C-alpha cells in the first residue's frame, strides 16, 4: 500500500513539475519527484541507489535548479487553483493503471540467469517499445531534415 501511494505521489508531482507556470514551483515539484523516487528505491531494497539518489540528485540538482531560476525571468501569469486541482486529478488518473494493471513477470526471476536472459525475460515489452520509440524519433528527424534541405534547395533555385 505504501509503495502504491509513493508511486501515485511520484506521478502527481511529475505532472505538477510540468504544468506549474512558475518555474520555482516546478523545481520544488521536481525535487519532491526525486525524493519520492529515492523512497521508492529504498522500499524495493535498492538502498545504495536510494541513498545516492537522495544525496546527489535531490541536493545538487535542486540547488542548481534554484540558482538557475534566479538568473531567469519571472512569468507574468500565475497558476490558478483550478488548474492545480485539474493537474492533481490528472496525475491521480494517470497513476491508476500502474496500480491496477501488470505487464511484468517478477515470478520468472532466475537469479542464475545471465544479464541478457534477465533483460529479455523481465523487460521484453519495454525493450521492444524503446526500440519503436527510437525508430520513430529517427524517422521523424530524417523527415524534418529532408524537408528542410528541400526547402533550402527551392530557395536557392529562386535566388
Amino acid at each position: 500500500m505504501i509503495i502504491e501511494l509513493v508511486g501515485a505521489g511520484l506521478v502527481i508531482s511529475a505532472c505538477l513539475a510540468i504544468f506549474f507556470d512558475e518555474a520555482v514551483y516546478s523545481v520544488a515539484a521536481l525535487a519532491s519527484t526525486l525524493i519520492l523516487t529515492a523512497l521508492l528505491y529504498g522500499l524495493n531494497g535498492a538502498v545504495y541507489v536510494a541513498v545516492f539518489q537522495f544525496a546527489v540528485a535531490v541536493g545538487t540538482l535542486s540547488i542548481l535548479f534554484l540558482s538557475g531560476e534566479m538568473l531567469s525571468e519571472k512569468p507574468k501569469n500565475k497558476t490558478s487553483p483550478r488548474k492545480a486541482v485539474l493537474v492533481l486529478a490528472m496525475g491521480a488518473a494517470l497513476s491508476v493503471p500502474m496500480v491496477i494493471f501488470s505487464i511484468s513477470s517478477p515470478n520468472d526471476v532466475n537469479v542464475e540467469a545471465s544479464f541478457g536472459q534477465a533483460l529479455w525475460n523481465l523487460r521484453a515489452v519495454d525493450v521492444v517499445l524503446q526500440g519503436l520509440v527510437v525508430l520513430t524519433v529517427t524517422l521523424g528527424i530524417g523527415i524534418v531534415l529532408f524537408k528542410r534541405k528541400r526547402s533550402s534547395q527551392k530557395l536557392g533555385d529562386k535566388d
Partner: protein
Amino acid sequence: MDFVILSMVLLAIGVYGLLTQRHLVKVFISIELIATAATLNFVMLSSQASREASQAFLILAFSTDTAVSAVILALLVIVSKKYGTSDISKVVKEEETKPEAESNAVN
C-alpha cells in the same frame, strides 16, 4: 504495483513536457523526468533480479546524469544572459531575425 507502467507514465509526461513547454527550465525538467524514468526501470530490474553489482553501475549512471545536468544548467544560464529571456520561441525568433537585420545593414 507495476514499475514498467510507472516508468512509462513518467516517460510519457517527460516527452509531453519536452514537446509542449517553451521555458528552458521546463525543458530541462522534462529531460530530468525522462532520465528518472529510464533509471527507475533499470533499478527495478536489478532489484527484482537480486543483483547488487548492477546497482553499482547505476550509481555511475547517476553521476553522469548529474554532470550532464550541470552542463545543461550552465548553458541555460548563458542563453538566458545572452538573450535576456528563457523562452525558446523568443530565442529562435531573435536568431532568425538577426541575419535579416545584418543583410539589411549591408545593403
